[in-house]
């Protein structure tokens, strides 16, 4: 089924043919299960728009007929129908809105699940480093809603009602019908598309200048202390104002171009009405059209442009929605970073020693090696630290151990088993810990902890908090474990977030604990305390501590110094302090 291949929920690859399809088509395909509801929405919308149009046409017929003073019975049906149309329009519009929104929200809920399942299956975490990217991905998912409610329904309603109006009018007076068809096509299709195309140039021009302005503003606001300290704020504000003046100049120059769409729509509408009037008056004078039909044709034409009124906004919006779709599928089409498992049932045995041999990883063909032949061993129960400057490959090592990605060469063994042969989740039952920038969910402390062990009793939670030295802080909170931590754990201090993540790792009780930069973003004093607590809590685990920070290294069993993807030095703190080299230079600095 094609709605399945649009975004496979599993880790399978997306077929080439599917990837080449227009993002708008693929987004629409996501809504396929709700096609019935959307069709109902379009139908109701057409009834609503059609009622308004029919009301005016019928009223015109009624007046033109009444002008000849026929018996009152001639108008009876029209009077009833007019009143019905008057009510029907409002009611069907209301229902249409409810039906389409309901369908769109149902679809959105499903699309979210589909997107999520795909992300959970392929784990494209390399792209997750920028928080901005993730929030954009989420917004792009929500763009599906925009497409369905505002991008698809209005054009479909226009097609149905416009087609009906043209047909009816053509039956009454063929030239009038053809004229209306032309007018509607121009005003509903040609003008919006042309306006959207004309708008692209100014859009690009303004985006470039706006970029300048935004850079200057970022500099001003983020660099404010430096600017003030060096007395340079006034000059900087002048730079902002210059960029602002340029943007205003470009925008004003472009406004002449952007106004064309509005003018063209009005012109097409006015001239079509005029054409209908002209043809009709000539035809009535020539005897080929009766006066009643003239009134119907002219007034229907006058009202008919309401059908296409929403379309320019749709055309302008579709570009942004398509861009959202392209970004969304760009992430979703990413194949899984981990190859399918070749065996299951990982049993790490008694001895959870980690043995890494000749490990090589790179982030793409032609890219430099992030890890270039790394040998490393964590004997069971040992704490091993991997240190080195940023870019040394430390975190890549952690991500291989956590099965976020496959190695490009070498072996990674835990308890003698090659973990790359097993499904990630089986490996993570054995190897777990604190990933880089651990996420705190906007919920209670209890739920954030139980994530690591669903169904854990409060006693177990408190024990984990004690080991992470967070128990006293939590006990001091009025609501204890029921405390809401806020979005991103903003209600907690940086040190508390790291301790919470550590408590979570302890609760998961893996055999091997991986701690990836647990002290990043902490100030020096908190850092010392957190490292001390980490090392105490890691007692009894095989632990890999990845850090760029040098505190507490005298307490670990072994230190690996990495640089540019290779192990530069290894040994205990005492050994390395005696050796000449990087470690001694840094610690003595």
């Amino acid at each position, binding site marked *: 089924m094609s709605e399945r291949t649009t975004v496979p929920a599993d880790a399978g690859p997306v077929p080439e043919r599917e990837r080449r399809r227009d993002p708008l088509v693929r987004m629409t395909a996501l809504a396929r299960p709700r096609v019935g509801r959307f069709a109902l929405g379009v139908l109701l919308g057409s009834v609503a728009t059609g009622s308004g149009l029919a009301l005016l046409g019928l009223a015109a017929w009624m007046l033109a007929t009444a*002008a000849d003073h026929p018996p009152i019975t001639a108008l009876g049906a029209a009077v009833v129908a007019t009143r019905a149309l008057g009510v029907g329009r409002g009611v069907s519009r209301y229902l249409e809105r409810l039906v389409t929104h309901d369908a769109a929200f149902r679809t959105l809920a499903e699309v979210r699940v589909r997107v999520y399942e795909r992300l959970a299956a392929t784990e494209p975490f390399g792209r997750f480093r920028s928080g901005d990217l993730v929030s954009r991905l989420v917004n792009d998912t929500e763009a599906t809603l925009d497409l369905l409610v505002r991008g698809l329904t209005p054009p479909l309603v226009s097609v149905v009602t416009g087609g009906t109006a043209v047909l009816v009018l053509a039956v009454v007076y063929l030239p009038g019908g053809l004229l209306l068809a032309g007018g509607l096509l121009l005003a509903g299709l040609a003008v919006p598309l042309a306006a959207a195309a004309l708008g692209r140039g100014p859009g690009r021009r303004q985006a470039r200048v706006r970029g300048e302005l935004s850079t200057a503003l970022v500099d001003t606001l983020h660099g404010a202390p430096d600017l003030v300290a060096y007395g340079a704020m006034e000059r900087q504000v002048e730079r902002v104002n210059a960029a602002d003046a340029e943007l205003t100049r470009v925008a004003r120059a472009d406004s002449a171009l952007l*106004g064309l769409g509005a003018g063209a729509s009005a012109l097409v509408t006015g001239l079509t009405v005029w054409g209908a009037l002209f043809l009709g008056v000539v035809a009535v004078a020539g005897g080929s059209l009766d006066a009643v039909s003239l009134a119907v044709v002219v007034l229907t034409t006058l009202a008919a442009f309401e059908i296409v009124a929403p379309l320019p906004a749709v055309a302008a919006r579709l570009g942004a929605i398509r861009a959202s779709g392209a970004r969304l599928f760009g992430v979703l089409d990413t194949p899984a970073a981990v190859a399918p498992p070749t065996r299951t049932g990982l049993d790490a045995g008694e001895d959870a020693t980690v043995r890494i041999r000749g490990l090589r990883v790179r982030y793409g063909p032609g890219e430099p090696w992030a890890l270039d032949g790394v040998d490393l061993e964590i004997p069971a129960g040992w704490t091993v630290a991997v240190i080195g400057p940023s870019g040394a490959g430390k975190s890549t090592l952690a991500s291989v151990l956590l099965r976020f990605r496959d190695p490009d060469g070498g072996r990674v063994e835990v308890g003698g088993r090659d973990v790359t042969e097993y499904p990630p989740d089986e490996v993570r039952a054995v190897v777990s810990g604190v990933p880089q920038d651990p996420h705190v969910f906007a919920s209670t402390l*209890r739920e954030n902890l139980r994530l690591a062990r669903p169904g854990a009793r409060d006693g177990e939670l408190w024990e984990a908090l004690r080991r992470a030295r967070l128990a006293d802080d939590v006990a001091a909170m009025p609501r204890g474990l029921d405390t809401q931590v*806020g979005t991103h754990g903003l209600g907690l*201090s940086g040190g508390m977030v790291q301790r919470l993540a550590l408590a979570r790792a302890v609760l998961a009780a893996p055999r091997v604990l991986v701690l990836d930069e647990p002290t990043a973003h902490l*100030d020096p004093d908190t850092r010392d305390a957190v490292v001390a607590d980490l090392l105490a809590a890691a007692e009894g685990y095989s632990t890999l501590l990845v850090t760029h920070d040098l505190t507490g290294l005298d307490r670990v069993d072994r230190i690996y110094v990495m640089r540019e993807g290779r192990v530069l030095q290894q040994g205990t703190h005492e050994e390395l302090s005696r050796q000449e080299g990087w470690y001694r230079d840094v610690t003595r600095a």
Partner: protein
Amino acid sequence: MTASVPGGAPAWILGAPPGAAAPVHDPARRVPPTRPDHTREVPAPMKPLDPRLVRTADAVRVHLAVSVASGVLITGLVLAQAWLLARAISGAWRGEGMDTLGWVVGAVAGIAVLRALLSYLAETSALHSAARTKSQLRRRLVAHVTGSGRVWTAEPGDGGEQGPPRAGELVTLATRGLDALDDYFARYLPQLVLAAIVPVAVLTVVFWADWISGVVILVTVPLIPVFMALIGMHTQQRTERQWRLLSRLGGHFLDVVEGLPTLAVFRRARAQAALLRTVGDEHRRATMGTLRVAFLSAFALELLSTLAVALVAVEVGLRLLGGHMDYQTALLVLILAPEAYLPLREVGARFHASMEGVAAADQVFAELERVRAGSPGAAPPATGRPSPAAGGDIRFEGVELLYPGRDVPALSGVDLSVAAGEHLLLTGPSGAGKSTLLSLLLRLNEPTRGRISVRAPGGEWEPLEGIAAEDWRLGVAWVPQNPYLFDVSVADNIRLGAPGASLERVREAARLAEADAFVSALPDGYGTRLGERGARLSAGQRQRIALARAMCRDAPLVLLDEPTAHLDPENAAAVRTAVARLLRGRTAVIVAHDAGWARKTFGADLRTASLALPTAEGSLPR
């Protein structure tokens, strides 16, 4: 009280009922990241025309005048077109041909062209005005924010390394946020003007033509705003109740996606899908509950306007049949009746899209109205000459700094002195206010209690606040923990504090700061643009540019804030060499976390002062 969810997944969002959130334990200490707004689905009610907007931006007044003028013209054209159409149709019915109706039909074409021209001009002028208004608001915002002292009073050492709070939001607001005003200007305001003019004009003409139809319209038109207001008020109450729930449910997806790596580590990733489905359904139900009511106002509008037209049509038709009215008048009334309601409907339809612009303007005004925080402006005007006192002695006596809205001061009871030419090492635990003390010496803040005095060589003690901050800073060079590099050339970054410096002087400063070698290796040397936040350079290189900046400033007082923290050995060594050169012959205050390490770095001739954690008691009057 934990809600259980199918599949046994932990119920993040369902863990506590809305409103049960515990008070946050600790004041938010980390800078909130800029987040997309998931709550846009239910915009807060807003005034249709913000008087502050009209007052502030003269472009708005111009635009309003243009809109009214074109509104009047458009109204005239609408009325004329209706009359001409009625005349032509009834004329043809009476048997008149093109010989008598020719001018009428021709005039319809003329009106079409005029209306097109008018729409074009109105739209163009609206976009013009929007561009000018945005510029005016933006400049006021920038002037206010940079002049208020607010942006740099982000408490240093208090997570301040992430940049001042909300700076990112301000940038978004000043660019993309204000762009939403385009729609407001081009689509909404002109329609609002029409909604005020057209119904009145149509009503007048209809009354003149046929007073009975006039009464029908007169009764129904005012009902529309009344009904909308009533329903709107009801919706608002409901919406506010749903608000928390909606935004929590809406944010849940982002929360789960952001936390996916964490979920994966604990093998909970797949289990969350079921919960996501539940929350999605709940979100839909809650949203639809709100929308069912929210759409009622549009329903009332649509129902009333269409029903009124139907009533007019029937009533006019019956009187025409009875011979109490002529055909042309009946047609005129029928054509005009919908026009009385159309602008109101359009305003309603465009309301929500345009309100984003109003919301942005609203945020700008909120920002503009924020009280100037921080420094009292008692200092004398700047002379533009460096204060000689910067090269002299400095004395702190019982200095305290309490940020507005805080209970515990950032710094309290500080007594210390720095002699001219002396190098003072400032140590103390995190939160003791080491960086805050530097901000006082930079005059980014003024003490809330106590006194800082300075004495120029051979001069008398004088209060620091008696010297214009600009003049004082001319004698100060500052190297922060995370120096900010601007997206301009390397040379301009180095001469930040000495705008007139020649390239020679810039090079010399860079050479002394051990930066000349790597700068020369950049594609355009000193002319290379550094990219956002100096993205081209490593942390150590950025630090050396900042040192070159301080060299170039050539000030007698140097303030250093942990300049070699987090550097690898090669960079740390280069920075050390540069710092040693910078400190030679200058007074210096150095903040460091680790005194032993700093001593090795900065040489042995350091005097150490240790700051203790500030206490609320310390702020009591002594």
